[in-house]
């Protein structure tokens, strides 16, 4: 019958699109998470506990399949991590301004 291949294509398409959307969020999460992780590492001795906590929340959301939440948490982690890196860079010189003995 002529309709069978169409039906198959139609069915596959209808299944594939939401899977793709989900896969899109998952990929986004993974990308943002790995950026957050590497920024967190870049902070060196200036890492924040809140960054670590957000990364953990993102990871467990991902493990339970909630990639929307995981992505949102990873995004927060990335922002916190970037701020901590900025702090490290700024403090490299700023500490001298308040030090007794200069």
């Amino acid at each position, binding site marked *: 019958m002529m309709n069978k291949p169409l039906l198959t294509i139609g069915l596959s398409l209808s299944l594939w699109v939401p899977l793709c959307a989900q896969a899109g969020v998952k990929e986004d999460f993974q990308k943002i998470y790995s950026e957050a992780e590497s920024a967190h590492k870049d902070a060196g*001795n*200036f*890492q*924040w*506990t*809140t*960054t*670590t906590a957000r990364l953990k929340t993102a990871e467990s959301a991902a493990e339970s399949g909630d990639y929307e939440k995981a992505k949102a948490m990873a995004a927060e982690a990335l922002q*916190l991590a970037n*701020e*901590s890196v900025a*702090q490290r860079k700024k*403090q490299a010189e*700023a*500490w*001298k301004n*308040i*030090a*007794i*003995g*200069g």
Partner: protein
Amino acid sequence: MLKAKIILVAMSVTLATPQVLAGATPEEDRKEAVEYFKQMFPDVPLTEFVNGQYALNEDRRSQWQSLQDFPPYEFAVADGQEMFETPFANGKTYASCFENDGIGIRQNYPRFDENKKEVITLELAINQCREVNGEKPLKYKKGDIASISAYMASTSKGKQFDIKVPDNPEALAAYEDGKEFYYSRRGQLNFSCAGCHVQNPGKWIRADLLSPALGQPSNFPVHRSKWGELGTLHRRFAGCNANVRAEPLAAQSEEYRNLEYFLTYMSNGLSVVGPSTRP
């Protein structure tokens, strides 16, 4: 805060000229710090700074003094003495690793090891002694290490800290590293150690009274009511860092050892009063 800034500016104006030629030495830093805190707390005798908040608040001081008949760390120090005197499996004791058999030496730590090119704290030396004698190292924040360190500190009560920064680049770098750590803002709350303990001692932070940086390491290991037990200086470093939402570093990590080196040097001339009690 403003008063502190005025004092700092005044200090830097009066001392600016001699320092133009070279960076401040540790001894110059220390003298300037002593002057700074003397001006900030003119009624506190220099020797009293080792008692932290108890030098600044009468009510807290009297509560603390009533505890001194039976300090809560007494049992831990007795345990520490027993552990210190008990031989290892190989028959040797801690006495074999330290000068003067480990008695009355707290005031010399931390010291800079010129061979290993690193800062050796008392707790690190205790574990090095264990490892050299085939024993497993102890964890660094609490428990047995704190008891042994507290016992050793108790044998030095009243002796003046005498930390040396030898005139070589590595020792000076370690000192400078500790100094940089102390004055750098960290954590999401963006506080430096100095923000509280240099710029705002004597002020309340929630229900805690901030102690000045001068003399701070003198009373460690410390029995904190909050902990219900003894804890080491590095335990406190980690706790303070976490309080400002900065990831704590590992106890006895290079950074914390350098920090202890800098802080204890600042307290040279002040007495060992550890172990002690704090809220």
